């Protein structure tokens, strides 16, 4: 199946979201891909794009995008919050719905993206929810990024010059700290402790709408949280095929359609 990739900007309040639509003629279903957060976005990018292409080649149209203030999207990261990123999901899901209201839509999130997808799904959006490596809270994703930053800083420090993670957490109470190119605010850190997975999403069902949560292990590098993988093109065929089958059975053959 031929899929066309269309990159573009989607306007939101005070910013433009970078989007890539993997467009399919007469799609069987659609998926909104809500990817990894912050620096994790960059390391997971290749397999994420491969996944989008895989879906499109099998007749599932998908839209991937960058969060406001991250990657190719505009906006000042330091001034943004999880509420803004939730709004991004809702606006794009609504846009996809308007494109073809009769075609079923799945929300699919990776790591922090899984939390944002769950939030939108709990609010009634989407016909199915697919979660990859969903953390319990957003803080579980932020903390390893901070630990990596501290480790890099300490490589150039000796003895008492070395700092602990706790020192950085004290610092963020008074001023933003830079982590892999992003300036984290006190609000981001505090809010990350409260952005969690709704209890109903932990089970493999949420009322009548199908939900699936997949734990990614080391074989799924570099999609995995905190991965420093140097595997260039990991073989994710099994993961892709299994999740494609679930999407098909949930949205197309299993009565998830509208």
């Amino acid at each position, binding site marked *: 199946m031929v899929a066309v*990739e269309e*990159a573009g900007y989607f306007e939101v309040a005070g910013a*433009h979201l970078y989007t890539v639509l993997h467009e399919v003629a007469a799609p069987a279903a659609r998926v909104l891909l809500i990817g990894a957060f912050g620096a994790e976005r960059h390391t997971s*990018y*290749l397999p994420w794009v491969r996944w989008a292409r895989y879906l499109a080649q099998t007749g599932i149209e998908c839209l991937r995008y960058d969060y406001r203030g991250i990657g*190719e999207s505009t906006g000042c990261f330091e001034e943004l919050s999880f509420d803004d990123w939730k709004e991004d999901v809702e606006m794009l899901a609504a846009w996809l719905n308007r494109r073809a209201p009769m075609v079923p839509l799945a929300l699919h999130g990776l790591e922090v993206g899984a939390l944002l997808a769950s939030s939108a799904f709990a609010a009634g959006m989407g016909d199915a929810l697919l979660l990859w490596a969903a953390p319990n809270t957003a803080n579980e994703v932020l903390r390893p990024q901070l630990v990596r930053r501290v480790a890099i800083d300490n490589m150039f420090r000796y003895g008492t010059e070395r700092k602990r993670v706790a020192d950085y957490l004290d610092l963020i109470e008074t001023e933003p700290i*830079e982590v892999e*190119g992003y300036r984290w605010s006190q609000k981001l850190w505090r809010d990350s402790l409260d952005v969690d997975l709704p209890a109903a999403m932990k089970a493999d069902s949420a009322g009548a709408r199908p939900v699936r949560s997949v734990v990614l292990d080391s074989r799924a590098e570099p999609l995995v949280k905190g991965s420093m993988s140097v595997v*260039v*093109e990991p073989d994710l065929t099994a993961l892709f095929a299994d999740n494609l089958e679930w999407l098909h059975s949930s949205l197309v053959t299993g009565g998830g359609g509208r």
Partner: protein
Amino acid sequence: MNTFIESRELIAVDVGGNRLWATYHKPCRDLSNLAPDEKNRVGILFLNSGLLPRASPSAVYWAESFARCGYPAIRFDLPGLGDSQGDIPEKAFDFVSDGGYAPDLAAALKNIVNRYELSGVVLMGLCAGAVTSLFTAAISAECQGLILMDPYFHVPQERLKIRDELSRWSVLSGPGLFAGHVYHGFRHLARVLRGNKLPKNANLPLLRSWRQVTSAGKPVLVLKAPSLKTRGIKPRAGEFDYLAYLQRVAGSGADVRVRVIEGTNHSFADTAGCQGVREHSERWLNHFFPLSTQTEPQEATVMERAMALPGLRS
């Protein structure tokens, strides 16, 4: 969805049967409003490190800064990377070390130079992106200068896991630090006894490209992050000093400048790295590729503009 906003445009370049994607940052002044002598200006094309997509925060920051100074800036995904189509070779880093991306990038440069009526392009690359930039500069007439950020001139070998563990131990523990000093001391001694020759794993085709580029008079700016257990541009004890070697072989007509940016690391992604790269690059661009003799940006003005960028206030 639009492919452009006020300050940027998404562009597709078809090369070798693949659609490659880039982001063009529009210069602060519209080309059509410029005087004829000012119209032909260089663009800056950035290649990210390794397999990273074109939109890391630092890459976006530099592109926006250059565009604000009046230089069109382009962030580019090589075939198979980021959003660009294509397959990544199984041994991707060997492919980079062989200059495998250079022909496609050279073809893309032609397209971009024609599309935006540029006089040429300065290639700016980080780590593996710097290696590809140098190979490309040697075969591309469109490339007029280079900004190389932490380039490497050897062919990386696959590292055993135990070697990574030993490296970590030598950095993080007291006995490891001592063992590291002893080990590198012996390496230094062995290197001196061998007459400080080029290492066996030197990337000879890349060194040839260096000679071609510098002898052609294309200016080169090398930006270095501090290395472990050394200061300034000198490598740590026991390692071959490629930069000293390259400056020796560059020839008398070459203009090679090397700058160290203190307080940053190999990614240059922190505030010190971002600002240091921007300051050195803008000063270098203003010197070698001035936009206009009458309106050359003053250093203070450039600094003020960039400090006003959101997200990077110190």
